[in-house]
C-alpha cells in the first residue's frame, strides 16, 4: 500500500476529465461544439487507452506498478492496489479502493470496452458531449467495482445512472424519453430498497469495528463488515438474527436482481436497449448489467450466507425463469435489437443458476459468464447499431441477402450470434459448459429433481433457434430479388466503416482468445471462488 494506482488514473481521470470537458463544451457555441468534436473524441480515446494500458499492466505485472501481482491466489478479504482516504470521519465514511479477482476482471473489461465503444461509435453525432459521457460512464462503473466502502459503492452505483440516462435521452431512438425515464426510475427505485437494507446493516452492526465513524461508532468498510459477518454467522448463528437477515438479504437482492435483470423485473431493459444509442447499449449490456451480479457476490452472499442458503430454491427459480422466459420471448421478437436485449436476460439467468448451485464451479461459471457476456454482447449491440445505421430499420426480415450487400456486417453478425449461442472455442461456451456441469452435479448431489435440467437443455435449442432464424432472414436469402429496403430511398447499401471493422475485429479476437484459452481469466476467478468457499462459506455452512 504505497501508491494509489486506482483512484486517480482509473476513477478520477475519466470522471474529472469528462466533467471538465463537458463544462468547457457547455459554454461553447453550437458551431464551436461541432469543431471541438474530433479533438474531444481523440482525447477520450487516449484517456481510455491509457486506462486500458494500466489495467493490462496490472494483470501482466510491471515493475512500474509494484511488480507482478498475484490475482489467482489472493487470500480472501485482501485486495491488490488497495488504498484508503478518510472521507467523512464522523460517519466512518472512507474513500477506500482495491481490487480482488472478483472485481479486477470487471475493471479490466470496463477499460477494454471503453476504447472499443468509442471506436465502434466513432461517427456519433454531438461528439463533444457524447464521448465525454461515455468516458464518465466508464469512470462511474469502475468506481462501483473498486469501491470497498458501502457509502462509496452506493454513490457510484447511482452515479452510473446519470451518464446512461443522458446517453439514452439525447442520442436515443424515437421513444427515448419514455425509455430513459423508465430506466432511471425503475432501477433507482430498486436501489433505494437496497439502500434501506445497507443503512440497516450500518445501524445494526456492533459499535467500534475498524474504521468506525467518530460519532456513530459504525463502519461502512466492506472488508470489515464481511469479516464481522463471517464471525457472527459462525457456529450456526445468524448475523443480525434469522428473520432480519432474511429480510435484508431480500432487500439487497431486489436492487441487484432489477439491475441484472431477472424476470419479472426485466422490462426496463428491452425498452432501454431499443432506444439507447449503440455506445450506450454496448456499455449497458457489457458492464452495467454485471453490476447486479457483482453486487450479489460482494454483499448479500458474503454477509448473509445463511439467508442465501435459505433462499437457494428461489435463486434457482429466478435463474431458470429468466433463462427460459428470456429465450422464449427472444423467439417471438421481430425487432433485432429487442431480440438481443432479451437474449441478455436469458444469459443473465445463467449467472443466477450458477450462484444458486452454491458450488465453486457454478460461481466460477457465473463469473466467467459475466466476463464472456461482457465481450460478446457489446459485439451484438454493435452489429445491431450498424444494422440500424445502414438499413434504417431494426425489423428482422426487412433486409435479406446481407451477405451480398454488407459482407463485413454479415460476418460480424454471424460471429456474434454464434458466440452468443455458445459455440465451442468461443468464450460463451466455457461458461455454459461449467454451468451445465455444476448444475447436474448439484442436482444429483442434493437430490433435486432432474426436471431442473429441462430448462437449460431447452434453452440450448431455443437459443440456436432464434439466432439461426434471424440469420436466415437477414444474412441469407435474397436471391435475385434482393433489394434494399424502401427506407434507403435508392441509396446504395454501404458496408460498415473502417472504425466499426476495427471494433468488431477486436471484440471477435478476444471472444476467440478467451474461448480457446479461458484460463487467462478463469484461473483468478477460480482462485477467488475457492478462497470464498474455503474461508467463508464452508466454515459457516459446512455442517449442513
Amino acid at each position: 500500500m504505497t501508491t494509489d494506482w486506482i483512484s486517480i488514473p482509473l476513477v478520477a481521470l475519466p470522471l474529472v476529465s469528462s466533467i471538465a470537458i463537458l463544462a468547457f463544451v457547455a459554454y461553447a457555441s453550437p458551431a464551436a461544439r461541432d469543431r471541438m468534436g474530433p479533438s474531444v473524441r481523440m482525447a477520450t480515446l487516449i484517456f481510455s487507452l491509457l486506462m486500458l494500458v494500466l489495467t493490462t499492466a496490472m494483470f501482466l505485472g510491471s515493475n512500474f506498478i509494484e511488480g507482478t501481482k498475484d490475482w489467482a491466489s489472493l487470500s480472501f478479504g485482501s485486495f491488490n492496489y488497495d488504498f484508503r482516504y478518510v472521507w467523512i470521519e464522523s460517519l466512518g465514511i472512507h474513500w477506500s479502493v482495491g481490487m480482488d479477482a472478483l472485481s479486477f476482471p470487471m475493471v479490466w473489461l470496463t477499460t477494454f470496452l471503453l476504447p472499443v465503444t468509442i471506436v465502434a461509435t466513432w461517427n456519433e453525432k454531438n461528439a463533444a458531449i457524447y464521448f465525454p459521457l461515455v468516458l464518465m460512464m466508464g469512470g462511474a462503473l469502475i468506481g462501483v467495482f473498486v469501491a470497498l466502502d458501502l457509502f462509496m459503492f452506493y454513490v457510484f452505483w447511482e452515479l452510473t445512472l446519470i451518464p446512461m440516462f443522458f446517453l439514452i435521452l439525447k442520442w436515443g431512438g424515437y421513444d427515448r424519453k419514455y425509455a430513459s425515464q423508465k430506466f432511471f426510475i425503475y432501477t433507482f427505485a430498486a436501489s433505494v430498497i437496497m439502500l434501506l437494507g445497507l443503512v440497516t446493516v450500518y445501524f445494526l452492526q456492533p459499535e467500534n469495528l475498524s474504521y468506525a465513524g467518530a460519532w456513530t461508532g459504525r463502519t461502512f468498510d466492506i472488508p470489515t463488515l464481511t469479516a464481522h459477518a463471517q464471525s457472527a454467522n459462525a457456529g450456526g448463528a445468524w448475523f443480525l438474527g434469522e428473520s432480519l437477515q432474511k429480510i435484508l438479504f431480500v432487500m439487497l437482492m431486489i436492487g441487484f436482481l432489477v439491475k441484472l435483470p431477472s424476470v419479472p423485473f426485466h422490462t426496463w431493459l428491452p425498452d432501454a436497449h431499443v432506444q439507447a444509442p449503440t455506445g450506450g447499449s454496448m456499455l449497458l449490456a457489457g458492464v452495467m448489467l454485471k453490476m447486479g451480479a457483482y453486487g450479489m457476490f460482494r454483499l448479500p452472499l458474503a454477509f448473509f450466507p445463511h439467508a442465501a442458503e435459505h433462499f437457494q430454491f428461489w435463486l434457482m427459480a429466478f435463474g431458470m425463469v429468466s433463462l427460459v422466459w428470456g429465450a422464449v420471448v427472444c423467439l417471438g421478437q421481430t425487432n433485432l435489437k429487442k431480440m438481443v436485449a432479451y437474449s441478455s436476460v436469458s444469459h443473465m439467468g445463467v449467472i443466477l443458476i450458477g450462484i444458486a448451485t452454491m458450488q465453486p464451479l457454478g460461481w466460477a461459471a457465473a463469473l466467467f459468464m459475466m466476463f464472456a457476456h461482457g465481450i460478446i454482447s457489446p459485439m451484438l449491440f454493435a452489429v445491431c447499431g450498424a444494422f440500424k445505421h445502414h438499413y434504417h430499420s431494426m425489423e428482422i426480415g426487412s433486409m435479406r441477402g446481407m451477405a451480398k450487400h454488407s459482407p463485413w456486417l454479415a460476418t460480424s453478425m454471424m460471429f456474434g450470434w454464434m458466440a452468443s449461442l455458445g459455440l465451442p472455442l468461443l468464450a460463451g461456451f466455457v461458461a455454459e459448459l461449467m454451468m451445465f456441469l455444476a448444475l447436474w452435479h448439484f442436482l444429483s448431489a442434493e437430490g433435486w429433481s432432474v426436471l431442473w435440467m429441462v430448462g437449460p437443455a431447452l434453452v440450448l435449442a431455443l437459443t440456436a433457434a432464434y439466432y439461426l432464424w434471424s440469420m436466415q432472414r437477414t444474412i441469407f436469402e435474397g436471391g435475385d430479388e434482393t433489394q434494399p429496403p424502401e427506407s434507403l430511398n435508392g441509396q446504395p447499401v454501404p458496408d460498415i466503416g473502417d472504425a466499426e471493422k476495427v471494433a468488431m475485429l477486436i471484440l471477435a479476437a478476444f471472444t476467440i482468445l478467451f474461448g480457446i484459452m479461458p484460463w487467462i481469466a478463469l484461473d483468478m476467478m477460480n482462485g477467488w471462488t475457492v478462497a470464498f468457499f474455503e474461508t467463508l462459506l464452508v466454515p459457516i455452512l459446512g455442517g449442513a
Partner: protein
Amino acid sequence: MAGSGSTEAVQSTALEYAPYILLLPMLAFPVILLLGKLFNGNKMWKDGLKEGGLIALPVMGASLLISLWLITDFVGGNGHGDTTGWTWFTSGLWISGQTTVTEISLGFGIYVDHVTVMLLFVASFLCLLINTFAIGYMNTDPINDNRNHRFYAEFVLFCSGMLGMVLADSFLWLFIFWELMGLCSYLLIGFYYERPSAAYAAKKAFLTTRVGDVFLMVGLAMLWTLFHPYAGAGQGALDYSVVFYEGNIEKVAASSAGTLGWALGLMFIGAVGKSAQFPLHVWLPDAMEGPTPVSALIHAATMVNAGLYLVARMFPFFGAEALHGELADLAFIIAAVGGTTAVMAAAIAFVQHDLKKVLAYSTMSQLAYIFTGLGAALYLANTLHWHEYLADGTKNPDYYVNHGIVVVAFGAALFHLFNHAMAKGMLFMASGAVIHEVHHAHHHLHPHDDHHDEDPEELLVLANYLADTGQSVFGFFNSIDLDQSGDVDTYEFQKALKEADIADLPPWEMQRLMAALDMDGNGRIDVPELELTLGRIHLASLADDDDHHDHHDEFDAQSMENMGGLASKMPLTATAMLVGSLSIMGFPLIGGFWSKEGIIANTWRVALDDPRFFYPAMCVLLGAAMTGFYMSRMWLKTFAGSPKTDVAAHVHPTNTWIKTPLFILTFMSLGAIVLASMGFTHWAPDEYYKPFFDGKKSLFEGFVYEMDHAFANPDLFFFVLTYLAILLGAIVGPGLALSLYGGKLDEGEETMPWFGPVIALNQMVKGRYHWDNTSFAQSGFATALENRLYIDHYYDMAMLKIVAAFSFKAAVADSKVIDGTVKTIERTSQQLSTKVRSLTTGSARDYILMAALGTLVLFGLIWGVVA
C-alpha cells in the same frame, strides 16, 4: 497416471506430432480467408492458387502424411497412445461434509487407439481426395467465381474439426470439435446463401443436430458427475483415460449403473442427430443444397460418421465386466433405431429422381446398417463373458470363442463404416462429376437459359409491348431518346417505361434494368444494345410458350430424368459409380460385401439369443434387397439406356482433378478383399485382440480364411443366411431394377468392355420380365414416400404451430402482462400523486381546515395513549 488404460500406453514419436494433424488445417483457415479477401479476383490467386484450393491441398496432404505415420505406430492392436494432456481450466467442487474444495480440471490431449486409427485414416484420406475433387469441381463453375476462398477456408476448418474429434482424448473435446463441424456444415450447406432453399437447409441442419447435441451435452454432464470422484489430480473426468479405466467403471457401476445407462442413452441421441438417424434424419436430404464436394465430404464420408464414432467410443462401457447385462436394452435401442432407419431411408430412396437425393437416403440407410451392427456388437459385448478372466478372477472357459465373436461383430460394423465412407465418397464425387458435366452440356446447348431468369420482368413486358404494338426497336428508341443524343440514359428510359404504362420504377430499380441492357458498361443504352437484348428476351419467351414450360422452370441438372446412356459418355465415372454401387449393395467380393454380411450375420446371431433383435435383424435383411434395388435403379437410370434429353447426349468426360480421386477410390473399393484378408473385418474394439497383423497369418491365409467364412460357413444357419443375403442384395433387388430401368445403349455408342455384360443383362431382363409399375407409382404409399412420409411436414408444423405460436404469445404476454403490471403501478402512483396534489388547493381556508382536523386527530391519539 491413476487412470491409465488396461494395458500399457504406447510410446510413439508420431504422437508428439499428432496435434499438427488438426492444427495445420485449422491454421490454414484464417490464411485462406484472409488471402481470399485481399486477392479476390487476382489472376495469380484465381488460376495459380485456385482461389485457395492449392493452399488447402498441401495442408491436407501433410495432415494425411502425419496421420499415416501415427497409424503405422498403432495399427494392429498394439495398445493405445495418450498424451499427458494440457489443462484447459480448473475449478472446484464443494463436496458436502468436506472442509476444503476439491479441485477439478478439464484438459485436452491426443488419444489414439484402434477406433481412432480407422476414423483417422478415413477422415484424412478422404479430405485430401475431396480437396482434389473440389479443385476440379468448384473452380470450373462460374457461379463460384470469387467466392471459392470461402469454400476452401470453411473446408479446411471442417477437416480440422473432424480430425480433432477423432484425435481428442476426452468426450469433452470430442463434443467441442463435433460442434465445430456443425458450424462448418451450416456454413457450407448455406454456401449459396442467396438461395432461400440453401438458407433453409442450413438452418434445418444446424437446428436438427442441435436438438441431438442438447441431449449429448446433458449426457456428458451426467457422465462427468459420475466419474469426477475417480479422476486423479490433473485429470478431466471426461478423459478417456478416466472413463474407460475398468477400475473406475467398476466403482461407478456399483453405485449408479442405471444413471450411467441414461447418460450413454442421452449421448446416443446426439449421435442420432449427427448421423441423421430416425427421428432426427430430416436434415440430411436437404443438406444436398451445398455444393457437391460438401455433400461428398460432410454428408457421406466424414461428419455423419461422427455419430458412429461416438457410439463406437462407448464400447468400453458395454464391454466392461462390471456392467455385464446392464446395457443390453440400450444396445437394442441402438440396433432398433438403425434397423428402422435402414428400411425407411431405403424406401424413400425408391422414389427419388434427384441423383444426389438417392445418395443422401442411401447414406442414411447405410449409416443405419452400421448402427445396427454396432448395436449387435455392443449387445454381444455386454451379454457375453468375453474377457480372459471372469469378475471373480477365475479363468474364463469361453474366452476364445466369445472374444472372437465380439471382435468380429465390432469389426464388421467398423469395417462397414470404412467401406461405406470410401464408396459413398466416391459415389458423391462421381455424381458430382455427372451433374457438373450435364450442367456444362446444358450450358453449352442452351447458353441463354441461365441468363433467362436474370432478365428483368419489365424488359420482357417491354419486348412483348413492342411486338404487340408493332413498333420497331429503332422507332421506339428514337421516340424515347428525348435529347436525340443517340443513346438513352436512365432518366429517359424511366420516363419512357412510365409513359408506355409498363412500369413506374424508382431509381434503384432502374439501375437493375440498365445493367441488364448496358452491354459495354458506359451507363447508357444505344440501339444495338436495346435491339439485341429485347430480341433475345422476346425469342426466349416465345420458345418458352412453345415448350409449354413454366417461365421459372429451370433445367434440373441433378434429375436422373434428364440423364440416361451416360456410360458411353463418361466411362470412368460410370465405372466408379458401378463399383461404388456394388460396394454399397454388398455384391459378393466387392467392398461393402465383406462388412455387410458380417453385420447381417451378427444381428441374426443376437436375434437367436434375444427375440427383440428379430426386428432389426429382419430390417437389415429386407434392407439388403432394397439397397440392391435403389442403387441399381440409380445406376441404370443414369448410365444405361438412351439419353432422355438432348443434353444428356452431349455430355463430355470430365477433368483430371475430378477423375483422379474417382480412380483411386475405385481401387479402394475393389481392393477391400485385401484389407479383409489383412484382418480388417476383425477390427478390434480393445487391445487384447491381435488380428492378423502380428504375422500369425499370411495375407493368403487371411484370404482363404475370409473366403471360407463368407462362402462356406460351417454353421448351417449362417451358411443359409449368407446365401439368403446374397440372393436378396445381389439378385432380387438389382433384378427388379434391371427389369424396370435402363436398357441398351443407343446404336453406335461405344463404352468400356466391362459394361458389356451389365448392359446385355439389363437388356435381357428388361425385355423378358418387364412389368408395369405405374399402379405402385400412383399409389398413396408412393406419394407418402415422395413426401418423405410427411415427417418433415409434421416437424415444420410443430415448429410453426407450437413453438413459434407460443413464443409470439410469450412476447405479447411479456409486454402486456409483465410490463403491463409495471405500467399499472406507474399509472396508479401517478394518479395517486395527482390526487395528493389536488389537496394543495392554495386556498388558506382549506389549509386551516386541514390543520384543524390534523390537530384534532393528534389530540385524540394522545388522549387515547395517556388515558
